């Protein structure tokens, strides 16, 4: 299968290792991965901040840059950005009177999947240890990001894949369905409320005794990881794609708060 990767702007610029892990997993399964170089961002930051006019050229760029390529399906290692494609891009186009772009945005959104959704629903993966050789002998907990959970209805897909990784010890966090407080520009526009939310989230994560908190959106993980780092916690945040990509031959190294840095693998 020819799979187009939508890296998302934050993974591209801050967490390239998450995109690399995504490529690793898909190629391990024998698929061809392509990366449309014209892509940038889904436009969610602008939309959620109310800058609808400014979001329009970003939506247009996203749709056009993927249309230049032939592929069977597109994937992103983010629930939030994938949700934005279907839920927000058509609205932004329609608002500008560009019904054609709205139609094309919808079409692209229907072919773009969040990583766990692609792996399970499209590629039929049900066991990471057996089918992906995933190996990660660490104590892990998981944050269920809101947009993947509520807008895409991912359910337990991400944590199910994580739990089938060889060697993993999994403990569910208290208040799993509670927002971490990120909310995009909410995190600095309403910094105190957001800070109170992430404080509670981090306290629950530490209660699990896990050394790693994983999840499907680096934006939430950056928020949680940043708060953990601020209190000098040993717990670190790692995107689940990196855990799935980790194998016995090429294991993901976990060394204190290093994963906070976005540097390459």
């Amino acid at each position, binding site marked *: 299968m020819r799979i187009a990767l939508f890296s998302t702007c934050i993974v591209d610029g801050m967490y390239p290792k998450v995109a690399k892990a995504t490529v690793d997993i898909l190629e391990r399964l024998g698929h061809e991965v392509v990366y449309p*170089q014209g892509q940038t961002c889904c436009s969610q930051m602008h939309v959620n901040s109310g*800058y*609808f006019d400014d979001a329009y050229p970003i939506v247009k760029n996203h749709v056009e840059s993927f249309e230049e390529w032939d592929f069977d399906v597109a994937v992103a290692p983010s629930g939030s950005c994938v949700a934005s494609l279907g839920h927000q891009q058509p609205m932004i186009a329609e608002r500008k009177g560009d019904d054609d772009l709205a139609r094309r945005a919808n079409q692209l959104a229907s072919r773009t999947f969040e990583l766990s959704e692609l792996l399970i629903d499209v590629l039929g993966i049900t066991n990471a240890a057996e089918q992906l050789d995933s190996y990660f*002998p660490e*104590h892990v907990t998981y944050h269920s990001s809101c947009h993947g959970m509520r807008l895409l209805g991912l359910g337990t897909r991400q*944590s199910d894949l994580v739990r089938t990784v060889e060697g993993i010890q999994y403990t569910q966090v208290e208040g799993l369905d509670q927002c971490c407080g990120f909310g995009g*520009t909410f995190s600095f526009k309403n910094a105190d409320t*957001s800070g109170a939310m992430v404080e509670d989230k981090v306290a629950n994560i530490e209660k699990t005794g896990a050394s790693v908190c994983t999840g499907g959106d680096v934006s939430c993980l950056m*928020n949680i990881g940043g708060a953990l780092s*601020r209190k000098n916690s040993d717990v670190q945040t790692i995107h689940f794609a990196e855990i799935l990509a980790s194998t016995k031959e090429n294991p993901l190294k976990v060394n204190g708060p290093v994963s906070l840095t976005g540097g390459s693998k």
Partner: protein
Amino acid sequence: MSVTQLGMPQVRHGVGNIFETEPFPKYAERELKNEQLRANLGFATHKIRDKRAAVTGELPDWQDLRTAGSMIKQKVMANLDTYLEEFERNFTARGGHVHWARDAHEANEIALKLIQAEGVDEIIKIKSMATAESGLNEYLEENGINAIETDLAEEIVQLGDNDRPSHILVPAIHRNRTEIRDIFRKKIEGVDPNLSDDPAELAEASRFRLREKFLSTKVAVSGVNFGIAETGTMTIVESEGNGRMCLTLPETLITFMGIEKILPTVEDYEVFLQLLPRSSTGERMNPYTSTWTGVTPGDGPQNLHVILMDNGRTAALADEVGRQALHCIRCSACMNVCPVYERAGGHAYGSTYPGPIGAILSPQLGGIENEFNSTLPYASSLCGACYDACPVKINIPEVLVHLRGKDIDAKKAKKKQIPTQMDGLMFGAKKLFSSGKLMALAEKGLPMSKLVTGKDHKISKLPGLVGGWTDYRDIPEPPAQSFRNWYKKERPSETKRVAGERVDIDALIAQNKNKVAEAHAAAEVAATDKPAPKTEETK
């Protein structure tokens, strides 16, 4: 009227207690420091949250009920003019009097005249959001009339010094039992000075004060949960029975009703009687449900009035996306599940309507152009818990984002507006995000970020607007190379176009429909295995 109006009608926003009193972030910052408030709210919201989840989860048709509720409300909004006139005809035919109020001031004036006509200087009240919105109690007080709240929680708020409700259903949610005991000891005449904080004793103290009022007061003011157009029937659901006293004992009953409270038929009412108690108190059914249809000689109030209040509702109705806020049945499920409300509390929203619903209702009733109301749509992380909980499926996150758009448009439309830091940030990001080539070029500068990161590879202090982030968290040091630039170097010649048939993704998904359950089953099995011991190489 014989004159046909052309063009858009003038939008008339509401007045009264529907405004934030300072920017939300500023109010919230202060409230967040109140440890007692945080504890009271956390305890109470989680308790109601769990009860609601249990009684909605047990109904196999809960989602269908939500859909039915949503559709009935859509029908009402699409035909509001017709239903209101039908309601007026039927209410009048059964001996009631209908008064129309364009805003809260008019509604208060009408109520005052009706009360003065009865020659009384004291009235009793059943808990009502509409009269809180209009500021009726304060208005009556200015005009020499004492309004006594008979709902236990409203009574606590009224007796508390300079207090005001912070929740739709549980107005005194910010108070705990000990605080309530102290208020009662101080404010209820003749109360036992050794009154304990036992709920039964507190309720008895309140009962002692109110019983005499119920039996001696001639005029009552109420709100209403639903007004049924086909019969002119009014209805109130409550827990304590104090409302029932107000609705049945006085000679005159004056009801405030927001014009959106209409239901077309008695059959529609059935849906909402299932939705409301389960969503609000987390009960299968509330203890007291009162319905009244017109005047019955010798039984109950002989003078029935209803004041139909607009107060910005027509303005909200004019907004195709925003109008769903008018579907609200004031159950408060959204605030009970909201992580922002749970921490900042209801007062931080300024308006009578707190929480997620308040954040979309207040700016529509009072206008997004209002300086402080314009901060309300941003008081959300857009987590979506409110949408899931709403019994009539109001897509609150959608409306929040829509109103943010209206706010930015309104601010841009103002001439000579100096661009904000946020405007600058968004403008720069727009330029960057409109072209992959530009992104690639900009990302070449990523190694420069080393200049601002500390020895520990993190950024702990940012300036200006984004400084709010580093007040609570660090930022990782950016990577030396972006994914895009790494990929281009690794794979310089990818082909855009390839010949051949594309895979049928929908067919694959249909074929894999059991895989979600299989993956979950595999995860459950894996969880029962012993975790592998950690090895030195991986640690």
